[in-house]
């Protein structure tokens, strides 16, 4: 079915797909992740050279000024090729958080050049939510101090910098923290999705240059970040879901049992039809959310959350079915389909869960026709 892309979007997709298909091999990825290289510097350099890091940065800040639809094209391909580098994290942080810094232009140039890899650090252990972090930012005569902990940060192993969400005297604050600075402890752990996570403890003094935003601006950019991240996680889920389906269709055509291909059995055909129906419905919603974002429509928030709910639901179902329809081979580490399943599962709870997205969706007013 048509994806209704502009010529430029088609070109972006074709170029990116060709690069990843030629250069992002699944077996190389497995070997690399096994030795703890979650983000390959050569890949990151290539992403930089391809302009992917400049893509979400507005033109007046020196970027390419492209929108959610273009970011989603890359996110979808990240899902399809199981990219472990923190591309969607970096795009969302650049677009929604760093752009609010007084030093936005200088910071974003470093992102676009690949020298800074920023990841947002929001989640904490215990009762804290994204609206009430216990990480504390205090000020004493022009000198800032950050204390607290951030837990289970996806791609935390690959970040050079974190944008840390903290409580300040004036509401929420975003603080830019280099991960290797004195006063930062990073515990890196391997993850089931190959991305490499980390938890962080902070007891660090910082100057003005590290304060990205406070108060209302910080609150607005938190909302913008979450909504964009919901869309990009949905897009990456969509890419992985489609890939899981395609792999399943191919495999059932090859696999002979009872003297015939598995794909000839109606019970399996109808399950794969359901997988296709649900994947296409998800695709429509993800693209519609992008269009709402890019048109600056007020219903974007509803669409972002709807896309997250749908993608999380469908991604889980389709990737589970993909394993079942393959049979035993899909439960092995060397076969690709289980890796789609694992990445989709990790994305389900990234930024927010399906249930949180659904509750937030219900709380937003319906746009009346």
């Amino acid at each position, binding site marked *: 079915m048509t994806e209704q892309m502009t010529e430029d979007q088609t070109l972006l997709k074709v170029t990116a797909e060709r690069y990843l298909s030629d250069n992002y091999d699944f077996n190389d990825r497995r070997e690399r992740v096994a030795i703890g290289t979650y983000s390959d510097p050569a890949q990151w350099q290539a992403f930089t050279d391809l302009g992917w890091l400049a893509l979400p940065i507005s033109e007046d800040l020196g970027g390419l000024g492209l929108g959610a639809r273009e970011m989603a094209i890359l996110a979808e391909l990240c899902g399809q090729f199981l990219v472990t580098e923190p591309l969607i994290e970096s795009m969302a942080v650049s677009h929604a958080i760093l752009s609010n810094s007084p030093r936005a232009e200088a910071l974003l140039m470093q992102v676009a050049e690949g020298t800074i890899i920023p990841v947002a650090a929001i989640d904490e252990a215990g009762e804290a939510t994204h609206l009430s972090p216990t990480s504390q930012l205090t000020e004493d005569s022009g000198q800032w101090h950050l204390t607290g902990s951030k837990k289970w940060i996806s791609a935390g192993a690959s970040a050079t910098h974190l944008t840390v969400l903290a409580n300040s005297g004036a509401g929420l604050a975003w603080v830019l923290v280099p991960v290797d600075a004195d006063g930062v402890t990073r515990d890196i752990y391997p993850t089931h999705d190959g991305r490499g996570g980390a938890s962080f403890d902070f007891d660090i003094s910082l100057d003005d240059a590290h304060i990205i935003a406070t108060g209302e601006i910080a609150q607005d950019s938190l909302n913008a970040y979450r909504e964009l991240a919901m869309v990009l996680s949905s897009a990456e889920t969509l890419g992985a879901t489609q890939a899981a389906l395609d792999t399943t269709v191919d495999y059932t*055509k090859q696999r002979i049992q009872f003297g015939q291909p598995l794909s000839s059995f109606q019970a399996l*055909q109808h399950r*794969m039809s359901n997988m*296709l129906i649900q994947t296409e*419905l998800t695709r*429509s919603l993800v693209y519609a959310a992008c*269009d709402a974002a890019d048109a600056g429509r007020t219903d974007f928030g509803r669409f972002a959350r709807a896309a997250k709910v749908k993608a999380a639901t469908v991604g889980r179902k389709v990737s589970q079915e993909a394993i079942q329809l393959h049979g035993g081979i899909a439960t092995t580490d060397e076969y690709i389909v289980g890796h789609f399943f694992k990445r989709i599962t990790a994305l389900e709870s990234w930024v927010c869960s399906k249930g949180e997205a659904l509750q937030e969706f*219900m709380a937003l007013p319906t746009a009346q026709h």
Partner: protein
Amino acid sequence: MNASNPIPTDYETFREGVRAFLKDALTPELVRAGERTTSVFSDFEAGRKWQSILHAKGWGAPEWPMEHGGTGWDIQQHYIFLEECKLANAPNPVMMGVQMLGPMLIHFGTEAQKQKFLPGIISCDDVWCQGYSEPGSGSDLASLKTTAERDGDEYLVNGTKIWTSMAHHSNWIFCLVRTNKEVKPQAGISFLLIDMATPGITVAPFPSLDGEVEQCQVFFENVRVPVANLLGEENQGWTVAKYLLEFERGGQHFTIELKKQLSKLHRLMGSEINRAKGDPTYAYRVAETEIDIMALEQTELRIKGSLSAGDNPGALSSLVKVSGTELGQRCAELLIEAAGQSAIPWQSAVLAPEYTGDTAAPAECITTMAEYINSRATTIYGGTAEIQRGIIAKHVLGL
């Protein structure tokens, strides 16, 4: 094309025009007929009257070519028209002729056939029904056994058709009949247009599960049909039928109706008659259904975009049919839960558009049970959900 962009102003002007017409043309009784519609068919007389009003306005068959009475609207205008009709509670016009047979006649008919039949279809002076399914031939339609034997300038038709909706109100029937038993099933079928007044035809209506009569069985005993009433070539009927089936699947915009059901759900949830108040999962299930309807609406828009670009949606209309009908069933389930026991009273009379008296069920719930019952048929008619999944498996997935 960007499917989600707001539509340009000239469409809004068009929408205003449609609204103004509907405000004028819809009598309270026609609106009641629309509100009390519990299947694809509205009250027969109301549907027929509405078709004749649309015809008088020049909107009797919007999708037909203009030389035959079409409006020349683009896809978006057509969608707006259908949406506004639904929002204004217009009844569904009598449709077998306009929506099903018309496109066939225009595509396969001779000049003489078009001149003879198209005017009566669009004005609703003729009422058509569809004679496809047989007691032994449902999903396996090509196995049909009603025969038409050539006898000079006539065919002699024998057999029976079932699920012939509205046959008891119709004066014409378009039929698939077997004209050759020696070849593979699909290659021996012809398409006949038959006058219901012909001797040898018997119509036996029977009530559906909701107690209403829409369905019939039609019997043919030595029915003589002029060869001039053959549509397409002899033994080409399957090709004609396939075109029609595709039209039946692709020609529907499910989300117009689904969004209306959704606003009904929201209204019911906020009202004092809501019986699901004690169910904390209810609002979540409604919200998930709403999200699924949004996804289907965006999918319909994508298909509409590809139609505008000149592509054939082909098997994707199967995707929309499966999803649209199953979502309609989910809405009907949610409505029946919210109505609870208040939906169980059965009063056939209150569904008539002229009825204005008391009702045993609350006014909001008089159609709820019938809608729920009839929603089960939506995944059966027009190609079952299983047939649609088979089409997707074969034509989209290549299985």
